[in-house]
């Protein structure tokens, strides 16, 4: 029984090789693909044509939620639900609600950022098809890989393989899902 294909993987020996190969894959119009490197490679995001992450927007939403939560919590408890005069101050003032709102802004921003990041990158991930690739351990040391997924609309076993070969990829093999 032929296993379902996850995609194609190719090995590269140096960062410039990987970088230029990534540019070729990007220019060929692929969307569902990735580079695997043992360390961060500056500028690779541009070579891959990656857009900026939307995590900052999730953070902003979290922050605004936190601020509103703090303000409304204190406005509701002190100004509506259980009115008490403390130190001759008004029932509600944004002044004393500010420190709490500020703390909640930071707290909710942190939650949203961490949560948004994990949601978008799919971690923790206990299994990934590339783990079956025999050379993948070198990816923690000194080798670089490009994986193109079969679900990409432009994926075509022969053409994609030719592209990776032409981009200088070695040990090209098909991955089981």
């Amino acid at each position, binding site marked *: 029984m032929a296993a379902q294909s996850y995609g194609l993987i190719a090995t590269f020996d140096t960062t410039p090789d990987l970088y230029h190969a990534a540019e070729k894959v990007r220019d060929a119009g692929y969307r569902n693909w990735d580079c695997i490197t043992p360390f961060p490679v500056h*500028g690779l995001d541009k070579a891959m044509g990656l857009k*900026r992450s939307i995590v*900052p927007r999730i953070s*902003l939403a979290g922050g605004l939620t936190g601020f509103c939560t703090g303000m409304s919590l204190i406005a509701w408890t002190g100004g509506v639900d259980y009115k008490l005069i403390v*130190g001759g*101050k008004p029932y509600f003032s944004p*002044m004393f609600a*500010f*420190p709490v709102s500020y703390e909640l802004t930071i707290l909710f921003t942190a939650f949203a950022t961490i949560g948004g990041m994990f949601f978008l990158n799919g971690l923790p991930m206990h299994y990934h098809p590339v783990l079956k690739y025999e050379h993948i351990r070198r990816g923690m040391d000194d080798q670089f890989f490009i994986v193109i997924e079969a679900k990409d609309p432009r994926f075509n076993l022969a053409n994609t393989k030719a592209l990776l070969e032409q981009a200088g990829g070695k040990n090209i093999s098909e991955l089981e899902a």
Partner: protein
Amino acid sequence: MSSTPAATATAGHSAQTTTAATASKALTVGIVGLVLTGLGIAISPDKHGPVMSYLVGFTYCTAIVIGMLMLILIHHIVDASWSVVIRRQYEHFISAFKWLFVLFLPLMIFAWVKPGFVWPWMDLNHELHGHGTVGTDILYQKKAGFLNLGMFTGMTLAFFAGWVWLSSRLRKASFTQDSDGDVKWTFMNRKTAAFGLPIGALTLTFAAIYWVKSLEYHWFSTMYGVWFFANCIRGALAVGVLIMVWLLGRGDYKGILNTNHFYSIGLLSFAFTVFWAYVTFSQYFLIWNANVPEETFWYNLRELDSHGHTTQWWWVGLVILFGHFFLPFLTLLSYRFKVTPHILRRIVSIILVTILIDMCYNILPALKDDHGDSLPFLSLNLVWVLTSVVGVGGVCVWSYLKSFPTTKLIPIRDPRISESLTHHE
């Protein structure tokens, strides 16, 4: 790294004549500003408004130059790399301290010739609104060891001596390294930073207390020096961005600055925007919450008149809240705004304007009418504030531009220069 030292040197050489021309223009504009301020003092019937406006303009420009000194010291103490290419511009700018000292002399003369004119506590016979004179005021007597003309003069001389000394040490070491490439200058600057930072922190705090806070000597705020420091750094970063954009546009910084330099300085501006807000809010909030008359009167002067109506200063406070915090905060959140030079330039220009408004807010309400109410914000004094800023600022810019052609554009033999040139690339 796309720029070679040779290319930098040629660019510097061709720009030298234009820099010299701009420098003399700056000096002319500065002198015109100072002369206009002087005229304002001469024609004004009570001279109080223009003199206080000059204090605003002077404090504003000095704050920015102090901020630059502090940024250089911080750069050295943390062994920063990205800011090496920008540090040189600050090193040129801090040559202005000696001129700032000269520009403080008129205020010093006022202090000696007409004590109590600018800073009321200098005149023991000064009438306080409703309760006797300064000399009989227990709140003055308890502070008299600190608030007296001798201390004021000595401390002010010490501030400028400290700043001039620190800046000449930093400048000499950095400029000499250009020619001999010796790493010992870097270590020397790091040592200067180690003792320079506490000196800088103390002098700027006491300068803010003597020059600005003591205008209302009844008042207490332990946040005042920190508030001043926050404005110093914000101003210095803002002028740093303006210089970067200017030199990039002129071609000097072409191939030297990349997106990440703008990102980093924008990020620092953002951080100090939050820091300023934190400090300023803390000061307001603690006073609001404690509700002690010796402290609240300071904000009352800036919100209400003696009939309890809100004054112009209340609106100025809101302009500061929104213009000095919310607007820069929300715009600097964006990555794109931070890395787009002409947008970042607009944001820091707003910051520079609002720092000036903040200085007005802290100084000008000390001008009072017969009822003890603060004189309104919108008045002829704003003209004198502007002429003072142009005057003192023009002299500072002239000092910067005069120093600019004397060295390489960037510290080419700094040990971290290549790291800085390839910042995050």
